[in-house]
Every structure is written in C-alpha cells, then in structure tokens.
C-alpha cells in the first residue's frame, strides 16, 4: 500500500539501522583496538576508518549527480536522501574516530572543519524540511503565488480608484505606497521585510482623524487603530467620501495581509533553499581539502 513515507522512516528506518551498525562497529573497533602510542590516522584502524570515511564522502557527493539523473533507476530519490542524511550523520563519528580526536592547525583539520560545516548546514536543511512545508501550506491557504500577486495588482488598482474620489493627498499617499511596494529581493530583505502599505494605511488614518476632529470632538492622540476609525464611521457623517474611505481602508488592509502572506511564503522558501548555498559549495571545498589531506598523508609517509 502506497503511503507517504518521510526520509526518516523510509523503508522502516533501513538507513538508520545501517548507520547505527556502522557507528557501533566503529566504536567497538576503536575501543578494542590497541594502537602503538595514541589512537591516530596512521594505524591500520585509522586507515580503515579513513578509507570508509573518504568513500562515504565521495558517495555523499554523488547525490548531486544522482539527483540530476532523472532517468536513473538506481533506488528512489527518497531512499537516497534518507541514506544521505543518516550516513552523513554517522560520518562525524567516523571522522573523529579516524583521527583519534586529534586536531591541529593543519590541512587535515581543515578538511575536518569543512566536513563539519557541510554536515551541520545539512542538519539545518533537515530542520527546515521538517518545519516549514506545513507552515507554507497554512500560509498559502490553497492559493498559488501567482494568484496572490494578481490579487495584489487588482487591489492596487481598486485602491487608486477609491483614493481618487477622496482627496489628492490620499491619492498621492496610496500611489507612493504602490510604487514602493517591493516583494522579494535579496535574502536580507526577505528576512526583514518592510511594508509600504503600512505608511499608506497610517496616512489614510491620519487623514480620517483630521476629518474626524470637528465631528467627533477631541480624539485621542494615539487613535491610529482601524477600530477607532470604524467607530467613527459608524458614528455618522456617512457621506460618499467616508464610504470610499472605509472601502479604501479595507482594501489597504487586505493588501497588507496579502503582502504579508506572500513575503512569508518567499521567506520560508528562501529558508528551505539558503542552506544549500553553504552546503554545496563547501562540499566542493571539502572535496579539495580531502584530496589535499590524502595526497599529503601519502606524500609525507
């Protein structure tokens, strides 16, 4: 029976078991092994673990090729990713056992550090994969990104039309906010979005406050919430302009919530992808450092 299986429980945790057996085997061998001097990469066990680790790294790197071999029938991507995650994790242990927990300021430790960064950036990736898909679905609420953008464009047109009937000042404020609305951009912008619609909302509210003064007496200074405006509107003086203003407020508020949603959507998607910009280039650097490590070890043997 076909069911959704995540990368963790793939094939009844097959690769979790494989990596546990590998890790436990390595630990037992390490404890049992009695090298001359301190445990290090130069003993027979050190070489063995080093070879296993190097092969593992090459195989983990092969994931990038397999992912792009769409016609490949060697396992499924889900199986590959599951194995990638579990065996990649066990690599931390194998690398440390291989070196006998020795570190220093040298090319060997550079390879180790790069490897750890790659693995931990991978952990972050796994975290985003677990955490964010559901967040994204909830935020999207069955709409596609394009349909959200379309709706925003439509709201803009409506807002301009409404603002036009109210006052040139309001129109200018709305127009400025539309012109300045930016969605997406660099990763930094994505993480700290600013919303121009807020400015427009504030200005429309200020404008209403001013209109409101003679009618509703002395308003409180901080009366900038929409609820207060609604109170004012329902209180009376429901001429055509207040009607348009009310609609304008609704439109802007709706746009505000849409830009929020779409920004959040982009933000989440960026989080699910950003770690790859560390994970992949550094894995290439790791390959170079690993090669240097292996060559130098044999050269200075």
């Amino acid at each position, binding site marked *: 029976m076909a069911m959704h299986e995540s990368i963790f429980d793939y094939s009844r945790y097959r690769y979790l078991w494989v990596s546990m057996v590998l890790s436990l085997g390595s630990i037992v061998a390490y404890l049992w092994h009695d090298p001359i001097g301190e445990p290090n990469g130069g003993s027979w066990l050190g070489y063995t673990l080093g070879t296993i680790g190097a092969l593992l790294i090459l195989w983990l790197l092969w994931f990038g090729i397999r992912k792009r071999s769409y016609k490949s029938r060697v396992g499924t991507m889900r199986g590959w990713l599951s194995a990638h995650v579990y065996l990649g994790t066990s690599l931390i242990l194998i690398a440390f056992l291989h070196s006998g927990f020795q570190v220093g300021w040298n090319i060997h430790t550079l390879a180790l550090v790069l490897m750890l960064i790659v693995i931990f950036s991978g952990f972050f990736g796994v975290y985003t994969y677990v955490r964010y898909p559901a967040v994204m*679905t909830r935020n999207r609420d069955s709409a596609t990104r394009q349909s959200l953008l379309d709706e925003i464009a439509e709201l803009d047109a409506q807002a301009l039309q409404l603002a036009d009937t109210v006052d040139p000042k309001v129109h200018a404020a709305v127009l400025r906010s539309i012109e300045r609305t930016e969605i997406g951009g660099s990763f930094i912008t994505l993480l700290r979005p600013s919303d121009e619609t807020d400015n427009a909302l504030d200005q429309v509210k200020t404008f209403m406050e001013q209109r409101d003064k003679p009618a509703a007496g002395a308003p409180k200074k901080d009366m900038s919430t929409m609820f207060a405006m609604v109170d004012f509107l329902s209180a009376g003086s429901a001429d055509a302009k207040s009607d348009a203003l009310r609609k304008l407020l609704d439109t802007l508020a709706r746009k505000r919530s849409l830009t929020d949603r779409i920004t959040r959507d982009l933000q989440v998607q960026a989080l699910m992808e950003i770690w790859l910009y560390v994970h992949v280039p550094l894995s290439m650097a790791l390959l170079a450092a690993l090669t240097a490590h292996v060559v130098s070890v044999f050269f200075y043997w």
Partner: protein
Amino acid sequence: MAERFQIAIVGSGPGGLSAAAHAAELGVSHVLLEAEPHLSNTIYRYQKGKHVMDEPGILPLRSPLEFKAGTREAILGAWNDGVARLAVNVKHGHEVSKITAQPGGGFLVECANKAQMIADRVVLGIGLQGNIRKLGVPGEDLPIVQYTLDDPGAFSGETIVVVGAGDAAIENALALAKQNTVIVINRRDEFARAKEGNLRGICKAIEEGTMPCYYNPGPEKVEALNVGRKKGRLVLQTPQGRAQILIDRIIARLGASAPRGFVEGCGVKFPSKDPSAVPAISPQYESNVPGLYIVGALAGYPLIKQAMNQGYEVVEYILGRKVEPADEPLLRDRLKNVPNFRSVDAFIADIQRNVPLLSQITPLQLREFLLDSEIHAPKPGATVFAKNDYTNTFFSIVEGEVEVVVDAAQNRRIKLKRGEFFGEMGLISGRRRAATVLAGPGAVLIETPRRSMNRLIQSVEAVKREIDKVFIARALQSRFTPESPIERLNEVVESARIVQFKAGDIVFNEGDPGDCVHLIRRGSLTISRQIGGKDVVLSYVAAGNYVGEMALLGDSRRSATVRAAIASETIRVEGEAFKRLIQRDPILRARLQAEYSARTASNLAMQQMPAGGDIISFLIAQGAGEATDILLIDEALCVRCDNCEKACAETHGGTSRLDREAGPTFANVHVPTSCRHCEHPHCMKDCPPDAIHRAPNGEVYIADNCIGCGNCERNCPYGVIHLAAKPPKKPGLLSWLMFGAGPGPGEAPYDPKAGKSSEKKAVKCDMCKDLKGGPACVRACPTGAAIRIGPEEFRAYARNRS
C-alpha cells in the same frame, strides 16, 4: 425554371471539395454549394500557420486535389489552385436550407438566399461544425460584425460589443478588454453555460464596472456610420428602454446550429438519439434516402484524407463504376494471418454469418470496424489478455473457441464458442480485466478498440441491447456465484435492469426500505451517514462492487445514504429475487455475510474518525471518483523543490506534464494538476486519429499519430493535457557541469521558443510506462511527499491520515 445538375454537392470541406473536383475532372455536370465566401470553412478557421497533419499515414490519397501534411495556408492554397485549374463550379454564399426528393426522381435543393436547383444526386459533405449562428437582425452581415476572433491582440483602443454567453464569448471579451472598451451582451439573464474560471472572470469584470453588461436585451439593428469617430452603432431594446451603443466592432459568438436537424429534415434517419450517432450508409455511401449520399465527418469519418478519398469514390459510384475501396489493400494486409483467407469480401461474409452481434451492421461499417481492429489467430493456450490488465478492447470470436479462467486456484474454466464475444466488462466499466482468457483450438479473434466499439454501440441499438444483456448475466455471475452455472441466476438476471445516475444523484437514502441490490457497472458511489446533523462519508465503492445487500441480509431499512460520486451506472437486482438466490445458495450467503461484517466494522471505524471521511469527500470533489491512479502530494513533506516537475520534463522530451503548485489542498493533501487516468477518459471522447490509448497497466497515453487538434485538451475537465512543441536538445550532464554548455538537467531551456512551435502535439502523463520502476515524479521526490494511488486505496489512505 431551376437549373439542373447531375450532382449537387453540399459543403466544400475535404469530402465535398474532392467530390466536386473529381466530377469537374470527369466533365460531369455538377455544382458545389458553400455557405461561406471561402472554401473549407472548418480548416479556414484554424489559427494562422497551424500545422495540419495527414493521418492515417498508411492510407493512400485518391483525389484530384493535393493533400499532404503542412501549414493551413499551404493546404488551402493547393486546394484553391486545384479548384481553379479544374474549373469546379463553386457557388459561394449558398447556404442550403432544404433538400426534397422530387416525385419524378432527383432532388430540389433550396438555399437560404432563395436560389433553387434540381439535382439527380446529392452528396452531403457538411461536416459536424454546423452553421455559425448570426445575430438575426438587419446589418448582421456588415463588415463591422464578425463571428470569429483569431487574435484578440489585433485590436486596441476600440469600443467592441461582444454578444454571447458561452465560453468563446467570455474568453474573447476578457482578452479584448485588456486594450479595448468592451461591452457584453448576454441574451439570457445569466452565464449558465460557462466554465467556472471564465464565469468568475466575467462576473468580476461586470461587478467592478469595467465591463458593462446588458442582460436579456433584444438587439434591433446594426448600422454603419459614415460620420463621427465610431464606425457604427447597435440599437437594442433593454428592460429600461431603447438604447444605442456607438461601436467600432461587434463580435458575436453565438455558437453553431448542429447539422443534425437539417440532415434529418432531408429524410436521413439516425439510429439513436446519442449525439455521437452517425447515420447508416451503404458501402457506396448512400443514405436511407436513395440518391442522397453522405461523406466525411457527418458519416463518421473525421480525418481529412478519409473524407477526400470518399469524395472521389462517391462520384465513381454515382457514375455506376466499381472502385476498389481505398482501404482494400490495407484490409487484405490486416487479414493475411487468418487461416484459409480467400478474400476480404468472403471474410466479411463469414463474420456476418458467424457473429450474430456483428450481423446487424452494414458491410461498410464492418469494413471500418475491421480497419480499426486487429485480427488475431493465436496458438491454442496463448493468453489473449490476463486478469487485472487494464486494456479495454473488445473481442469477437469469428472461428474456434476461447477459455475463460474463472477460478485460477481451482483451474475452473468456461468455454466461449464461435459467434460469442468477451472483454465487454473492461469496455463498459473501464476497470481491470476480471479474468484471464486463453485461446482455444482454431481461434480467430477480432480485437476492437474502445472507441470503435463505443461508436458501434451508439449507432446500432441491437448491438447495445445484446451486449447489455450478456453483460448483466456475466457480471452478476462473476460477482455473486462464480462457482455455480449461469442458469442458476436466471431469475435474478430477469429481474435486473440498468439504472443510470448523474454525479451527486442519490441511489438510496438512509432509512428507505431496502428492496434491491445495486452492482456498480461503471462509475463509483460514496456511502455516507447523517451524524450530528452533518453528512459524514464512510466509504467509497468503485465499479465492480455492490451496495444495498445490508438491508436484505439483516435489518430491512437502509443504514446509510448512497450517492453517485460521478456519472454512474448500476445493475439493479430486485430484492425478492436476490433473497431467494441467497436462500438457495449457502456459499453465497456465507460470503455476503463475511463481506457484510467487514464492511460494518470498517464503517464503524470510519464513523469514529470523521476527518477520514472529509478526506474522501475532498478527493471525490477533485475527480478522484473516476480516477484509476492519482498523484497526491503530502504538503507537510513537500519542500517545493519541483524535482517532480523537473523529472517529468527530463524523462518526457523536455515538457513537464504536471503542475505541482496548481490544484487544491485539504488537510495537507494536495492534488496537483496531473492526469488521473480516468476509468472513462474524457480525453478519448473525440480524438480524430484515435491516438489516445490505455496500456495494460492502466496508463492513458497519447501515441505519436496525434494531429495536434486540441480536442483532448478541451475535453479534459482537469486541465492536465496541453499542446507543446518539442524544445531544443540539451547538453549532457558532463558538458554542462564542466563547460556550462546550455541548460543543465532539470533547468528550463534558455530560449523556450527555439523549438518548432507550429508542430505542436498534445502531451499528458503516461505514468512513465516506458520506464522501469514507476513514474519519474514519484521516484524523484526526495522527501516522500509524492505518491500515486488507485481508488481501492482511498479508504486506507484516508484512515491513515486522519
């Protein structure tokens, strides 16, 4: 006195044109009557530059006019040249309104423009498009009034009135409104016929006031104006009074009047009311009205080359000559494996003598039937088809016998003899084969594809009756009493009848008295129950299963409500007859009781988890009720990497057949826009070259002989088929990785327009039937979010997720 011709040809499509050209070539007195000011209106209305294909490639062309695959312009150009060269007597603007047989022989042909003529013989080649409905007011033929729209981008800054309430009118109005002022005139009071997306678009535009709309108006006249900035005006009667609109253009999209009424008016009989039925014609294309001939799409031959050949042949026949039909060599080739083969005619005579089912149809229909079919002479013991195959062809036994393996475990078989048929269950229910069939000694079988068989069933009432009768008996036997002889069931079969339900129709209600059992023969049903004032779906029952036995076994009232999930047909068996059958048959009773308790337990489990029922309801609403295999994405696992789409594109010539993002989501279950491989695929309904097939594992795929007409794209309710050109070739993995040559794996081509855009063919999911290990989309999903499941798994799926 009306002019007299030997042959009058109505309609200048491929068939009519070819007939007229051949008559002109032979110097026979003829007239070709065409309503439009140009030839071949259907092809004329294709979009500019459209590539027209010349399927079937194996059929030779017989016509004085040229025809080979090419652009619309090249083909129309060649025909215009041919018509001029042969001096064909064409009369444009002659829309034939009436054809009456004269007492002294010959026909009186009357046209809408009052022209009349007498013809000894009439050839109808009017196709199926019908005549475009016009405005029906003075000025309807002015140049500012048009009835088609090729390119909405061609107009800008104009005031345009769009008349119509259908999808064509709405699509035109919405597209034109981007750069024109558009006013819509809907001659009814709502847009009832429109697709949902179009409806939403137009209602929004009207509500916002950007597109004024007049409902229920009576247009009075259209006038051209010489002064002022606008080219004309439209005067109309609105509920508020008389109004005039100054306009640049009127685009009227009022549909076409189906030709059937006209054809019946000429005295031609159709065998059934079904819209796909075609009139019966003789091998010489003569209808039931002597002297009145029918060729082309109207006679059931939708391909250009077939129609052209018929045009040629019909003139030969009228002149009393004998022509070997163009398909004769093809048929001879097809029949060469038949033991003791003498001639095509002798074989056809054999079929009519031996197979009662096929004796009802005309030799011409039978030829067409054989041309579509495969003839097999399998060795004894060879498998004809295996149980659980998804094929849907129909088999008739011309010679010898076959064995049906009723029960593989006990090796119980029944024999079917010469003249009988099998495979009707797959054909009608659209589901897997119910049993394996093995060839017996001397078997000669005709294997007919679904489309030809369905056309035959619709066209010949007797065929439908016979197949239904046998279907009922066999379906009841295989479902209820596979171990006892079919005669046991006589009483039940007598009481059974076929009932049809539309989607959402109630089969029976909770609390109704239980007086019958329904065996589903096509479609599927949902079982639901009122719990706490809410309708909770408990189960989903696919074709081949039954409902309603609970009331007959235990309590006498219905314990749940049963509704049709999609358009469905059931075999309704009378309760009394069924009860007596149960009393006689203890094995059946035991089995029913076992299934009954399993079902009760499952319903109870479902009742405790109403969320599961909601998921089933959601899937049904997405068309899963007619699916055989549907792609589902768990959005809690999907990381939106689009690797599924990339894998699809990479394994299918560069075009993805699925759209991950589009489609609705419920409780994290996302149904992307991707083929569901329907039991009765809507896309197969109207495929001129019959290029859409179902493979043994259930995949509905489009073969290479697709002509790119786009019918399947329009017929698919789920929007999963589109027309695509082949994109340019990509570099290999290494040259991309090392040298950056072109787009890499999974990347879109740099210049998507570089492919040959005119030769577009329809593409859809084929479930990667040619790749081992299953669909690439599912295999390429790194997180396990994408799976494909069949309807029998819905219940377990829903339970698992709630």
